[in-house]
């Protein structure tokens, strides 16, 4: 291989050599970083998508919640957008609603566990809520049954009863696993 035996020019001017080196690194770096930057830019897209402000969603009517103080589970139905797909009137989650004897005010609890986000269910005895994932237990008003893995009580949601008896819940999601109720 004849070309291997040809002499290699030795750098004489160290300043010029430094410039060449720096330029080579910067040029090559710029060329390589361009696709990386484009990729990262698109990848970070979810961060700039702010969630629409929580709004009141009609869930049921007052008469559908027996006034016995026991929570009942209701699906929350709303239009939903998942990236490019729009879903009309889809179940997007669930709430527990309850009202006391003779009362017209409704208490609403999100069915999403504040511990790690599983779906909290009523215990088979009907005496408390229980999350099937890590055994967090909550009283019927959502309070923590100690000791619990959950850092906070079940998340209460704002709830109002319209004049026609319609029950509306302000649908919000909160960060799991933290002591404070911070909207997600």
């Amino acid at each position, binding site marked *: 291989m004849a070309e291997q035996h040809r002499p290699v020019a030795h750098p004489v001017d160290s300043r010029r050599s430094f410039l060449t080196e720096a330029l080579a690194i910067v040029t090559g770096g710029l060329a390589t970083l361009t696709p990386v930057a484009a990729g990262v830019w698109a990848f970070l897209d979810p961060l700039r*998508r702010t969630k629409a402000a929580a709004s009141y969603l009609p869930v049921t009517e007052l008469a559908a919640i027996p006034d016995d103080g026991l929570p009942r589970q209701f699906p929350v139905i709303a239009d939903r957008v998942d*990236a490019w797909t729009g879903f009309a009137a889809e179940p*997007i989650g669930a709430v527990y609603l309850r009202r006391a004897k003779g009362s017209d005010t409704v208490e609403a609890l999100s069915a999403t566990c504040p511990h790690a986000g599983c779906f909290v269910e009523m*215990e*088979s005895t009907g005496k408390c809520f229980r999350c099937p*994932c890590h055994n967090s237990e909550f009283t019927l008003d959502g309070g923590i049954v100690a000791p*619990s*893995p959950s850092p906070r009580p079940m998340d209460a949601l704002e709830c109002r009863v319209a004049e*026609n008896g319609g029950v509306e819940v302000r649908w919000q999601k909160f*960060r799991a696993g933290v002591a404070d109720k911070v909207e997600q």
Partner: protein
Amino acid sequence: MKHTNHGDAVQKGVFGRLADFFDDRTGYRALMHEALYERVPGGARWRYVWGSTLVFAFMTQVITGLFLWASYSASAQTAWESVYYIQHEMAGGWLLRGIHHFMAQAMVVLLALHLLQVVIDGAYKAPREVNFWLGLILMMLVLGMALTGYLLPWDQKGYWATIVATNLAGIVPGIGPSLQQLVIGGSEYGHHTLTRFFALHAGFLPGALILMLVIHLSLFRKHGLHAKQPITKPDAMFWPDQVLRDAVAMLAVMAVVLGVILVPALRAMLAGEPVDVGHLGAELGAPADPSLPYAAARPEWYFLFLFQFLKVFEGWGATGEFLGAIVVPGLIMGVMFLMPIIGNWKLGHRFNVAFTLGIVAGAGLLTAMALNEDYYALWADKAALADAQKLYDETGGDEEKLAAALGGDKAKITAMEAKWEKLEKIRHSQAFLDASKQATLDAARAIELAGRPEKIPTAGMLELVRTDAKSQGPRLFAQHCASCHAYVDPQAAEAASVIAKASAANLHGFGSAAWMRGLLDPDQVAGPAYFGNTAHKDGDMVNFVQNELTDTDTWKKDDIEAVVVAMAAEAGLAGEKAAEPLVAKGRELIASDERCGSCHRFRDNGTDLGTACDLTGWGSREWLVGIIVDPTHERFYGDTNDRMPSFGKAPEGGLPRLTRAQIELIADWLRGEWYRPAVAAH
């Protein structure tokens, strides 16, 4: 560099010359030599196979993964669907997916063995520190691929496990919430959660893994094999002795994986049962549904110890979760990374070995605890707790009442409370077992529906499940109807107690001749299965059945049977058959203003509505939907309606309790009308 002797070329055949041609231009012979003639100190040994089996497992994952990729579609509406298609419709799809699924598990086991061996043999010490660190990074990449792969079928278990995993990522201080948002591709789980997990699973992570693996292997070659002392035999080359041992180990790993996939088929064949290959290998659950609780949510078995670890911090609040999910696992990894340095100290190596064995034992213990909690009800001695259960039912679980019931005897109270704790454990375990059973049923139904000749609709599988009367009927009934109505086969063992507790009719078999026969039975009509627990108990119908139908001069046995079958014919349930003349006779009796028609409208008999239900089309889909929409309508109970809500009537400007579609699902379910595969597969 080896030089090819060109002078020999004349004597060589075509292949020899071709080989020379390529070797001249690539130097492949030297490469092959380099690869195969690695010196193995002390000769080939079985204990050196573990690293190779791991490379083999990874290659298996790459190969099966690429072929799965060729058939997989990552979106919320196509992921489950495409995996279903791979598993149940594509020839060999079940085997491909089964190998990928179980080899992933084998890889985790092999990884643990490899790590144990490296630590115990002290192979992490100088000069191999960097390679040990690379190994730990490789381990995390493998676990990352396991975690991301679990979601890809987009079934219930993968979905809920991912919710937990990503929520845990969200508690990392500072960057947690942003990290979570980036990983799930927004604030909600959906298309972009799948596309991102898939890109991680099949692109980023394996790419990084291959890079690390190349360095890991070249460093391994640079330092040579860490030989187990003492060396008694002479050194040998990697090829062929060690390669043969490695190959045998690889085949053994593959045999175990195939065994796990095929044993259920063998069992079925031995029992003479048909084998449905779609059910071999990896499981596919029901499609992910954010609105449907999934109480059987568990991570893959090798992550169970982490899952259980979170429960250890009960009562620690947010600190506990932070410790359990981030700090402690982080510290453990930190210590492992420091092992090569710790190993330099006098007792360092012993510490490292003890630490690693301790972690493995701890993980094993936590896994056993998790399994024991979930399956406790299977082996708990329930008979020994019968007295405790009785007392629990009597006192309603109230501790004060318990103290009173036991006369304040402290020892007895403590003993009973211990038993109550066991009862609670059984309840929790039973809830998990029931949920697992339900999950299996839901999965089977989804797979059955997906196999319809009409295929899966554009909207996806979830849409199909949500409009399936067989799956949704029981849920809607439980939520909206079961607080009053029973739904239990009267022949079932527990039927009597269930029916007695209900405050409205048992709707099992509603519309059938058997149901109608019970209604027209003087002994049953005022019983709890019909009007017994309702306001109609003393109503005209009960009075009629008990006092007039018993008059055998007017109502011959045949007459009543004719009415029964004619009514069943109105409902027209599948499987109900009656002789046409008898039905015609029954219709006449029903319409007659001297018989049923004196109160009931039937077809064009002219009886006014408002006194009793219109029997035209009784029990038909339209009739059932009508009565659920509004039982106070004059066609049904009118003013005499007892407690039943008008589920389909909306208050002005409001929502009805149930949508039309939901009511139709209940009606179809009560009538037993849902998709059934035309013929059983075999």
